[in-house]
């Protein structure tokens, strides 16, 4: 297997002086391509901060990490934005869709923002992804008219739009009922199996964690198991 992600001695401190809060304390992590990994740990352990840093949305206070062989610490904002768009997909706890756009328009967004327009090929892939998510009859629906589970499946489709190597999911089923949660998790597993996409899923749900090949436990800003 090929190394996808290499994280070493990652520290993250919010604030300064007396009010400083150290969230990550020398965390190190290694992910191989094609892994389906669960990120477990109590609230406040640093899971979300780790995902945010790995998603290139925030820089750590110190430490190093490389993804696909590229040094993410040295990259500037424009380079990180481009990298994020091409190689990383996000699924948030709250779907975080663009409310004034249809399901298809939301899915196509990562591709269109890179190409400068919605290409026919991107729209075709967006439709395929939505069909795969079981939303064939909701393609042109405004996202406001979709249920919570449907919105989250649209968010999964959007995360996969640019065929990223890594999908970071922060409590993707935390806001869903059991049936919808199971459905979303089955979709993620299926894509992992069929396309080899690497998933790092932060969750409190033991059933979700059990469905993953690997469990990474974070406690007090460090990986413990």
């Amino acid at each position, binding site marked *: 297997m090929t190394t996808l992600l290499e994280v070493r001695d990652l520290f993250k401190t919010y604030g300064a002086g007396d009010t400083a809060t150290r969230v990550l304390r020398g965390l190190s992590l290694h992910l191989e391509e094609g892994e389906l990994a669960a990120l477990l740990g109590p609230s406040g352990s640093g899971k979300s901060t780790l995902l*945010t840093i790995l998603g290139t949305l925030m820089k750590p206070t110190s430490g190093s990490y490389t993804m696909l062989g590229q040094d993410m610490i040295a990259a500037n904002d*424009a380079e990180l934005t481009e990298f994020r*768009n091409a190689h990383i997909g996000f699924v948030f706890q709250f779907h975080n869709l*663009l409310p004034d756009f249809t399901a298809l328009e939301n899915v196509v967004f990562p591709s269109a*923002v*890179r190409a400068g327009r*919605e290409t026919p090929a991107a729209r075709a892939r967006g439709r395929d992804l939505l069909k795969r998510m079981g939303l064939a009859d909701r393609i042109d629906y405004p996202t406001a008219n979709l249920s919570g589970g449907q919105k989250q499946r649209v968010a999964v489709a*959007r995360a996969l739009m640019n065929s990223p190597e890594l999908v970071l999911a922060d409590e993707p089923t935390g806001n869903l009922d059991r049936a919808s949660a199971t459905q979303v998790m089955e979709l993620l597993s299926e894509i992992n199996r069929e396309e080899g996409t690497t998933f790092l899923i932060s969750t409190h749900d033991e059933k979700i964690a059990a469905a993953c090949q690997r469990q990474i436990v974070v406690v007090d800003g460090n990986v413990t198991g």
Partner: protein
Amino acid sequence: MLYGLKIATRYLTANKGQTALLVTGVAVGVFIFIFMSALIGGLAEFILARTVGDLSHITIEAETEDPALLVASEGHVLAVTERGRTRDATLAEAATWLPLIETVAGVKAVSPEITGAGFLTRGAQVAQVSVVGVEAGRESAILDLASYMVEGEERVGSGVIVLGRDLADDLALSIGQALHLESSKGITANLTLGGIFETGNGSMDSARAFVSLSTARTLFSMPQGVTQIEIKLDDLNAADATALRIQSLTGLNAVPWTDDAEQLMEALDAQAQTGYFLKAFALITIVIGVASALLLSTYRRRPEIGIMRAMGAGRGFVVFVFVTQGALIGLLGGIMGAGLGYLALLPFPTREAFRPGTLPLDITQGSYGLAITLTVIAAILASILPARSAARVDPVTAIGQ
């Protein structure tokens, strides 16, 4: 960029009511801009037409020669010819210049004239008049005499005189009556009243007498030449440049009307400055309106901006989306305001039909293209601050991760 335009358009159409209100606000600003342009421009036209329209735009007068001196061989002055009270310098070769002046671009009409002072007598009544000798057929070349005629005709044939209404009333004259005109040279002519005009200008209606050029030659014993050449232009604002051109072509002393109208020009300039201020205020209102609305939109859409950034949208893309919204609002508001302005100005009379008592709004001076262009620029400038603010949104805090 096409995609940025789509997002911007979608944001504007997502809140149709709010966008309509914003565009209407901009349109009102543009409407005020256009209305002020038409009013200030129309007022200037009206004032100029009323004050300068009937005057000569360029006047060529003969240079008054220096007083002649008789100097003794020892150097002291023996005699001086005192300068006369009346102007008697002549443009002796006027006839040779007229065809050349008529060909100068922008020249509408040329009128060679002999002017002087005289006394009009009818029975025991005497009135001092300013006599203007004009070529028959060119009576309306400078002052539009034909349009001011209230009785008779403006034609100044041989032995015919045309007077103002006040003067005719003072002397109790009516068309066809005979009267005597004695010039400052002491020469008398018997004339018949051929027409009465009323310009509304008191000094003209009470003291101006038009006669034919040949009659004036007799009265002022001027067998050849004229005292002045009056020139009317298509555009009275071109008087300075055209006067210079005529001067360089002929070597004659061509004086534009602006030389004697400093106060009028200052007043018009002050009026134009006021217009600029009002238009600037209208633009500032547009800038404030667009900037505040877009700032509000930026604040409301912070989570969406965060999502877009997380999905790989660069800061430049976010700036483009918000600046495009500003430009679209400016364009729509500008076109709507310009359209409304044009429609509102349509019922007003054209510049040629301005009359005292009506609002002199000149529909041709609405500056529609300028208003739309400036509005789009103002709206783009107004959107830069909100756009920069949007581009600085931290995706992590905006989407609550």
